[in-house]
């Protein structure tokens, strides 16, 4: 696309290699671009979402090297070459991951916008801490928001996955 009234500059971009859900993508990006934009705009993934852009709500969470990471405040350069997993990387509607199945079982959603942050944060935490107590789960989920307040069902789903993971 032409730049219209403005000159297009390529000086600010470089080839960035991202490994997302097991696939390698090489993208021409400003290295300071937040990972979220590369995932949702360039790779057209629907899982990670822009909620606040400030790392406060969790909607953009992805898992990088086993850690829950806020992709809205993480540059593409900083995760180049790392294994990045998004919500899509866990399971599919036909074959959901056990934590996704737990959310279906508990009918744990209202609008569903926060689900990405809730599920990815809970999975990263429980995979590392399979025997976490209820209080520890609560603490781990205290940086995530659901403004429809589906807390009861979501925490039930997380606990169900936690029990299965601990077995």
């Amino acid at each position, binding site marked *: 696309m032409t730049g219209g009234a*403005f000159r297009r500059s390529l000086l600010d971009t470089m080839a960035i290699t991202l490994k997302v859900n097991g696939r390698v993508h090489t993208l021409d990006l400003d290295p300071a671009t937040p990972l979220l934009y590369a995932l*949702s705009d360039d790779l057209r993934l629907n899982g990670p979402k822009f909620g*606040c852009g400030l790392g406060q709500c969790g909607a953009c969470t992805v898992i990088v090297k086993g850690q829950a990471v806020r992709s809205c405040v993480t540059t593409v350069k900083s995760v180049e070459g790392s294994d990045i997993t998004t919500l899509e990387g866990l399971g*599919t509607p*036909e074959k959901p991951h056990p934590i996704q199945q737990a959310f279906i079982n508990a009918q744990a*959603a209202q609008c569903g916008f926060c689900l990405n942050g809730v599920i990815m944060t809970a999975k990263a935490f429980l995979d590392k801490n399979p025997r976490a107590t209820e209080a520890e789960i609560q603490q781990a989920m205290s940086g995530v928001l659901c*403004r429809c307040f589906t807390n009861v069902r979501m925490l039930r789903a997380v606990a169900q996955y936690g029990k299965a993971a601990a077995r």
Partner: protein
Amino acid sequence: MKPNRRDFLRTSGALIIGFSAGSLKMLRAQGPLPGSPAMNQLDSWIAIAADGSITAYSGKEELGQGISTAQAQLVAEELSVPFSRVKLIYCDTALTPDQAHTSGSQSHPANFNHGNLAQAGATAREVLFRMASERLGVPVERLIATDGVIVVKGNESQRVTYGELVQGKKFGLALDAKAKRKPAAEWTVLGTPVPRPDLPDLVTGKFEFVHNVRLPGMLHGRVVRPPSVGATVSGVDESSVAGMPGAVKVVVRKNFVGVVAEKPWQAMQAAAKLKVNWKPGAALPDHGTIHESLRKLPARDTLMVDSGDVDQKLTGTVLKATYLHPYQMHGSMGSSCAVADVQGEKATIYSATQAVWYQKNTSAMLLGLKPENIRVIFRRGSGCYGCNGADTVTYDAAVLSQAAGKPVRVQLTRKDEMAFENYGPAYVIEQRASLDSSGNITAWDHESWSPGLGGRPGPNTPGNIVTGSLLGFQPAAFAPRSPAPSPGAFNNSSNGVPSYLVQGTGTVESGRVLTHAVESRFFTGPLRSPARLQNTFAHESFMDELAARVKADPVQYRLRHLRDARLKEVLQAAAKTANWETRPSPKPGNLKTGIAKGRGAACVLYEGDNGYTALVAEIEVNQDTGKIVVKRMVASSDVGPISNPDGLRNQVEGGALQGLSRALGEEVTWDHEKVTSVDWRTYHSLPLGFEVPKIEAVLINRTEGEVMGAGETSITLVAAAIGNAIFDATGVRIRQVPFTAERIKAALAARL
């Protein structure tokens, strides 16, 4: 269908509080907008394909409240097919009827009582039976339908499918007002907890929100909002972003400023770098004294009820109390987003608006296009609860797309979402009541002040929200009026009238409710349970104060002043499940230090006719820190026949916790220029992980009668029930929301 105040109301929750009823009636008089499928035609609601698959069309959308599941259940039930056979299409101006807003807990009443989708289902069923009767040469009485096949009783080889009967053709028939609905006793799909079909896609990232709409050649827009409330543009230096990578266009129209770029990150940077000179607006009122200042503004006065004898009756033992509520915000989880493709005279708009037809009309106004050349397609956004940024960002995308000549996606920043949305308004409510020697209430006087500005755009007021206003459109006019005229027909849609007055659900004959609507400096709108929540907080807290004054049990005292059997029953049901101990508050024997336990109750008939609900909250107050921990909430609900008990439970639970967050922490703040609660550090929402109370939803199912709304019942009672529980635990009455630890601690310190 009964034409009533619900239709009247649905035009705007906020306008009804603050502005003239005359303008509302005018809006309603327009009915469905031109070009929308005829409301009385069966083909507008239901189509049956040759393969027997069923498509239903609805003007009520899925926002996350579960209504699409219930609507598909309704159609499946009336047509005797499995749930999975029904495809529901909702809120697309090219396809679906104009049912105005999806709001006000009106979707269920609108489509499940006697008109619209319910009547279409019943009509289609009777038509199919008549067609089958002719085809098979057997009277209708001898036919039964199962799974989309009509068979002759006792001779199942004589059969015909819906697909064979209709053959994909249109019905060409009007809705039949006499077509009989299936009685609840025969339901097999309705009334059951059918799981939501959208969940598998939602939990795996396949679901497409409006945020995920991607059109070929789509550009990304960002708006540059004023740095202060009321600021106007005095100049824009377009050269400040010249040569930026990917920057395509700067758009300035009156006070609207935006940029368009190829990629979101580029648009963000261009928006941040664009030099705009702003002329500041008038200083904002002081946040700390907002409630006092509301009382001094020119007001539009309305008397909701007036028995004419309140001043004479308010003698002897008179209690008086003033309750304060802050401005609060929708604060949607995802900032609002829309995608618009304006090409010459035509436009296609993807929006999370709660009213696609009104969005179509008002977008046409600001684009200078004919409404018939615009198609608005609903795509789900982040949970809304009334009037978040969904409509305003749709205008942003439309204006930027028109200027760029390409499809444009706009998502607001967190700050722009929070600083300019239509807030739930602040309230000052004064209550006075007199008691006789037996402790009965003899008169109740209620007076309130509440600010309003704008609201939902409706069919023709784009200036009711920020983008329309920046583009030069005016918000709905404010006309002060004092004194108030005599009360009109009784209408308690705002729950301004206490439940205990005889005009409503109670026994107290002497009463007066006077409201003062004043102008707001911030846009306001119908935030979940608009006015109903603030009024109910004041009424149900005051009722507790009256009960305490006469040393009566708060539940018994309520029952004593109620005459509506269903409201009594719902209150008794919550009390019973909560093992309510009959005694006056405060709780005897509590110490004045450390943790004190207490319980509180509240009840209301939402909107005066749209959902019976009661709530019991059990709490702990840490008297050293002022922190409240809610341990348990029992929420009872009677909303008529239950279509999907799990969906109802989900609404009751979510409403209770959202109400808890609003009661404990949420408050819009500002300095003398601008809103300062603009992210999740400065606007205090409860997170997902906190000490979540045990919530028990007690559902009373009435298989006869009409359905009522269920989306806003439990939330309406939370602040009152918790305030009453704080009093029970500590003897301290907190009359101002939110119940922050600092506020509680200060009140406890002042305790004698």
